[in-house]
C-alpha cells in the first residue's frame, strides 16, 4: 500500500473539513477523490502531503508516517494543487530548472530532465517565455511538467486537467497511465466524472469531510445504481411487448431500434435475452447505461446521499 490513512480528522473554525477519513491506495493505481466544492478533497491531499496537520488520525504515505515526519513524506510525492501560483517573472526553463533542483535532481542532469518534461507536455517552444505571459492552459501544462520532474512514487493531483485543451487531455491521460504502469500511483481530484472513467481505477466520494463510497466504477455502479440497459433489437414493437414480462422500473423507446429498460434487480438482466428469444426478436446489442455521474447523482441525492452507501463501504 502506498497510502494507508485512518481516522483523519481536520476541523477549521467554521467547518469540519475531514471527518474520520480512512482510505488505502495501492501501488500502480489511479485513485480518484470526488465530491462537491468544499467537501474536503483538497484538505485530504494537504494532510496526506504533510502540509496541514490533522486533528486526529494518522497516515502512512510511501512508508513515511505523516504525523511523525510531515516534511519528509514530500520526498516521495509530486504535488499539484488547484490554483497554482507560479513565479510569473521566471522563464519557463528557469522555472522548471528551479523545481528540478527542488526535486533533488543533481545539477548535471537538470537540463536533460527539464528537456524531457517540456517535450512530454509539448511546451518546449515556450521555454524562453515568462510564466506570466503563458495562457492558463500553458501554465497548467507547465505545472504538470513541474510535477512530473519529481522522482515521486505518488502523484497528488488536484484538478490536473483544468484549463487543458482536449488534445492535451487525451495525451495527459496517456502520460499518467504510463506513469502508473511503471509502478507509480496517482491520487487525483476532479469534478469531471465522465473524463475520469478513462483513467481512474478506484473512486472515493467525499462529502462534508466523510468518505461515503469507495470502489471501482463497476462496484459502485452495481452497488448504487439500479441496473439499466440500452438494447438494440430488430423489432421494437415485439420487443417492448416481450419485455413487459421482465420485472422493471422503467421501459421506454430510444432512437430507431433502441429500447431503454431499468430493472428492479440485477439478476433479472439474464431474463431479457431469454424473453426476446422466445418472442423471436434478435438482440443486436445490450449495454449498461449507468455512468459515474449517475453514481455521483445518486450519492448526492437528498435523503440518501452521504449518510452511508447500502451495504457499507466496499
Amino acid at each position, binding site marked *: 500500500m502506498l497510502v494507508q490513512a485512518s481516522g483523519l480528522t481536520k476541523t477549521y473554525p467554521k467547518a469540519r473539513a475531514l471527518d474520520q477519513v480512512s482510505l488505502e491506495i495501492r501501488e500502480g493505481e489511479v485513485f480518484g477523490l470526488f465530491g462537491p466544492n468544499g467537501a474536503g478533497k483538497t484538505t485530504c491531499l*494537504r494532510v496526506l*502531503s*504533510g*502540509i*496541514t*496537520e490533522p486533528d486526529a488520525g494518522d497516515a502512512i504515505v510511501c512508508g513515511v508516517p505523516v504525523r511523525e515526519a*510531515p*516534511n*519528509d*513524506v*514530500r*520526498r516521495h*510525492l509530486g*504535488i499539484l*494543487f488547484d490554483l*497554482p*501560483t*507560479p*513565479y*510569473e*517573472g521566471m522563464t519557463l526553463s*528557469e522555472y522548471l530548472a*528551479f*523545481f528540478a*533542483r*527542488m*526535486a*533533488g535532481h543533481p545539477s548535471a542532469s537538470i537540463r536533460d530532465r527539464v528537456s524531457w518534461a517540456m517535450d512530454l507536455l509539448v511546451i518546449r517552444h515556450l521555454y524562453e517565455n515568462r510564466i506570466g505571459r503563458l495562457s492558463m492552459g500553458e501554465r497548467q501544462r507547465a505545472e504538470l511538467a*513541474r510535477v512530473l520532474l519529481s522522482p515521486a512514487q505518488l502523484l497528488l493531483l488536484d484538478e490536473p486537467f483544468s484549463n487543458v485543451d482536449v488534445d492535451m487531455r487525451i495525451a495527459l491521460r496517456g502520460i499518467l497511465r504510463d506513469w502508473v504502469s511503471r509502478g507509480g500511483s496517482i491520487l487525483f481530484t476532479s469534478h469531471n466524472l465522465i473524463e475520469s472513467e478513462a483513467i481512474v481505477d478506484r473512486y472515493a466520494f467525499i462529502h462534508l469531510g466523510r468518505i461515503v463510497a469507495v470502489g471501482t466504477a463497476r462496484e459502485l455502479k452495481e452497488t448504487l445504481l439500479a441496473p439499466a440497459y440500452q438494447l438494440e433489437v430488430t423489432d421494437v414493437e415485439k420487443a417492448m411487448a416481450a419485455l413487459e414480462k421482465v420485472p422493471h422500473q422503467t421501459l421506454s423507446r430510444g432512437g430507431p431500434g433502441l429500447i431503454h429498460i431499468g430493472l428492479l434487480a440485477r439478476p433479472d438482466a439474464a431474463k431479457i435475452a431469454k424473453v426476446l428469444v422466445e418472442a423471436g426478436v434478435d438482440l443486436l446489442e445490450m449495454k449498461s447505461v449507468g455512468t459515474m455521474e449517475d453514481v455521483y447523482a445518486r450519492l448526492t441525492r437528498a435523503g440518501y446521499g452521504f449518510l452511508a452507501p447500502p451495504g457499507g463501504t466496499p
Partner: protein
Amino acid sequence: MEWRDRLPLIWAIVRKDIGRARNAVFVCIVIGGVFAFLVAPLALSSAQFPTTFRWFDSTLRPFYAVSAALTGFALAIAFNTVHGGEIHKGTIRSIILYPVDANDIAIAKLGSTFLISLVLTTILFFGATAPFFAFGVWPFPDFLAIHLMALGVGFVSLATGVFLAHVLAHYTKRMAISPVSLGSLFLVGSALLTETAANGIASQVILLLSRSRDQFPTPEDFRAALTFAQTVSVLSPYHWGARILSQGFGIFPAGGELLVTIPIALTLLAIVGGYVLGKKLYLDVFTR
C-alpha cells in the same frame, strides 16, 4: 532529513532569490560610481596632507552609523522582497510542495538576504568611498571590519525575529506575526536601542517635556537620558558590534561585557528555540 539532503534544496532557493538582484546590483554600481566621482577631489586633497589615521569615538560612531543604516535598510528590503514578496504573491505555495521545513525556508531566505545585502551594500559603501582607499587616506581593513560588523549584527537581529516567529507560530498554530514583520521589528528595534539613537530619542522627549512645562532642561536631565541610553543599549546587537570594534580599534579598553551576556544568551535562546520548534511546524502556516 539529513543536511546533505537539505542543503541542495536550501541552495536552490538561495540561487533563485539572488538571481533576482541583478538589476539592483547594476543600480548600486551606478550610484556608487557617481558618489566616487563626487568625493574623488576631497580624497585627493586629503591625500596631499599625509597623516596617520587614528580612530576616535567621534570618528567611529558616524562611520558605524552610516554602515549600520545602509546594511539595516538593505537587510530589511532584501528580506521583505525575497520572503515577504513570496508570501504576498503566493509563490511560497509552490516551495512548500517540496520536502523542506520552516527552518529550511528561513535559512534559505536569510541566506539570500545576507548575500544580496552583502553585495549591494559593499558596492555602495566601498564604491562611494573608493577614492579615500585608493589614495591611502583611510585604512581599508578597518572600514571592512566596520562594514562586516554592521551587516553581521543587523543580520543577527533579523534572524532573531525570524526564528522567534517560529516560536510564536508553534504555540498559536498560525503565523501570528510573520517572520518578515518580526525580523524587521527586531532590526528597527536593534537600531533604535543603540546608545546614540536611544540617547537622541530620550533627549527629544526631555526637550518636549520641558517645553510643555515651560522650563529649560537641566544638564542632569540630559545625563539621565544618556544613562538610560547606555542601559538599554546592551539589548542591541548593534551595540555589541560597536563595543567589539571600539575595543579592536583601541578606543575603549575591555571590561563591562558581563552586562551584554544576558541579552546575547536570550538571542541565542530565541534562535535555537525557533529552530527546534520550526522543525515541528506544518507549512500551511505560510498560506493561512
